[in-house]
């Protein structure tokens, strides 16, 4: 027993070093990408923005079937037509992921019409873009229900079958604001922080489940309609990401079974700084980098 403990004690630092080195090597050497030809992909919020690009990317990389969920039929139909023209089978369902009953019913319809979903991409999100005191209560709740609880419902709907099949992947399109909050988007920051914790907890829980894993993607500000009007102070230093870039990196992360993805890589510096700087220093940096004012010109979607 003593030897076992000693072994664990010695193994721990060695294991840590090995994993750090492995991660470093992984950055340099290309790894083998997993085949998607037998995967059925479901993308929530799939009608526009990053969701649309994700659908396109999955289709290009040979996914078998793609299912799009969203609340606006026009966008879904357009994206579905586009994917079908690429030669991939594609279906869409109108579903508000913030509505629990609706999620379960639509999930049932998906199973009947399309079959088992093996890759679930939780991409649906809304942002209110106001300070707490200016926010309407219902809008605050809506963000929580769509951005956070929606992930609970979709995961509960599809995860059991993935576990049975021992094949599945759950993806969360989150935001760097989950780790570093800003003023003017308090509902979004709260809900994305919750979603991040959900995914982290789920990822830890799935480590012992063969064939099923999870990926969390934390992109920086992306040029989509959702954050229309948001202004970065130093756009040359921190250029907004393109939806195509986010989608490509996300699908690659799925194929590599990567648990956590920060985009761009420099966001790691942000996370590290946040854990070592005193609060007052953080606030000065926020002020200088313009995060205190970036939401002032926010328009978003109607």
């Amino acid at each position, binding site marked *: 027993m003593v030897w076992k403990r000693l072994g664990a004690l010695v193994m721990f630092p060695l294991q840590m070093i090995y994993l750090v080195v492995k991660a470093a090597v992984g950055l340099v050497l290309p790894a083998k990408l997993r085949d998607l030809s037998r995967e059925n992909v479901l993308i929530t919020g799939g009608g526009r923005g990053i969701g649309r690009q994700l659908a396109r990317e999955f289709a290009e990389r040979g996914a078998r079937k793609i299912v799009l969920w969203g609340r606006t039929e026009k966008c879904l139909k357009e994206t579905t037509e586009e994917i079908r023209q690429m030669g991939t089978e594609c279906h869409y369902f109108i579903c508000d992921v913030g509505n629990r009953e609706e999620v379960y019913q639509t999930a049932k319809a998906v199973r009947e019409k399309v079959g088992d979903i093996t890759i679930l991409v939780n991409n649906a999100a809304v942002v209110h873009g106001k300070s707490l005191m200016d926010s309407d209560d219902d809008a605050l709740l809506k963000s929580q229900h769509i951005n956070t609880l929606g992930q609970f419902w979709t995961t509960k709907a599809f995860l059991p079958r993935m576990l049975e099949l021992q094949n599945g992947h759950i993806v969360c399109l989150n935001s760097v604001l989950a780790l570093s*909050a800003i003023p003017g988007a308090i509902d979004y920051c709260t809900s994305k922080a919750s*979603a991040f914790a959900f995914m982290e*907890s789920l990822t*830890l829980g799935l480590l012992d489940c063969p064939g099923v894993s999870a990926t969390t993607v934390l992109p920086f500000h992306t040029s989509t309609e959702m954050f229309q009007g948001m202004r970065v102070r130093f756009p040359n230093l921190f250029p907004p990401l393109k939806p195509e870039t986010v989608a490509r990196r996300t699908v690659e992360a799925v194929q590599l079974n990567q648990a956590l993805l920060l985009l761009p890589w420099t966001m790691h510096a942000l996370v590290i700084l946040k854990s070592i700087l005193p609060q007052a220093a953080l*606030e000065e940096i926020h002020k200088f980098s313009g995060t205190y004012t970036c939401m002032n010109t926010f328009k978003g979607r109607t």
Partner: protein
Amino acid sequence: MNIVVEFFVVTFKVLWAFVLAAARWLVRPKEKSVAGQVCLITGAGSGLGRLFALEFARRRALLVLWDINTQSNEETAGMVRHIYRDLEAADAAALQAGNGEEEILPHCNLQVFTYTCDVGKRENVYLTAERVRKEVGEVSVLVNNAGVVSGHHLLECPDELIERTMMVNCHAHFWTTKAFLPTMLEINHGHIVTVASSLGLFSTAGVEDYCASKFGVVGFHESLSHELKAAEKDGIKTTLVCPYLVDTGMFRGCRIRKEIEPFLPPLKPDYCVKQAMKAILTDQPMICTPRLMYIVTFMKSILPFEAVVCMYRFLGADKCMYPFIAQRKQATNNNEAKNGI
């Protein structure tokens, strides 16, 4: 050129912030007084909430206690009144000894008010807040402490319990803050205390809903702090309390690795609240108890995810909730825990 100057100013301010932070370590700042101020505590009927109430009472704050459990709330109020009577007796004795020559503290009519309130329900919060304003006055210190845990694995947890956890632990902070912040903003004075958890900084398997709610609270608190800073309301302070596992019975059965437990035992509630009170009274933006949590947070930020998982596993932190969930299930099967949620 303007930007270059600003850059150097910011650099200087950042370094100065480090100096100040170091100075705080060497010289403990003086604690501010909350005597005579109205302090509202949610979830005051048990656990940390009750202890916060007692600590604020000892510092002569007027207390407003919110809890969904009327009986335990009244019990806390009884304890508070007991402390108030002790303070008044001590005042009288000191007054007599001093022959009435000096007043020790401005005389306060110390009172405690109790309200039964389900903070998970928005209307309930707003109505009760209105009553507080009418019957007590303006709240200076708001302690958001109320919390629940469902204690189920994700796929076995009823949806209503998931929603309840999110509503009580996370969404309630919207309502209470919206209810009391406007007045704080008007007079540029107040303090908002958010009691989160170490599970608001790093997750563990098995309690997805609880972790999600606590991370959400941390995100809310951060965003709120930045909003107040951006609005230049320096009179309103915020403090985030992130205690490690507290021995209050809420997570009975939870345990990390056997060999690590002596180094990282569950916190005594008293110690946790005393540390938090120090942070609150010195306007500290955040406190993790014990300090080891800061190191874990830092490690988590610099290591790749696989290494973080390895660290979690070594500490036994990744599955530490499984014994708690198992115990909860057993208790539920015995029909004992039905009132617990």
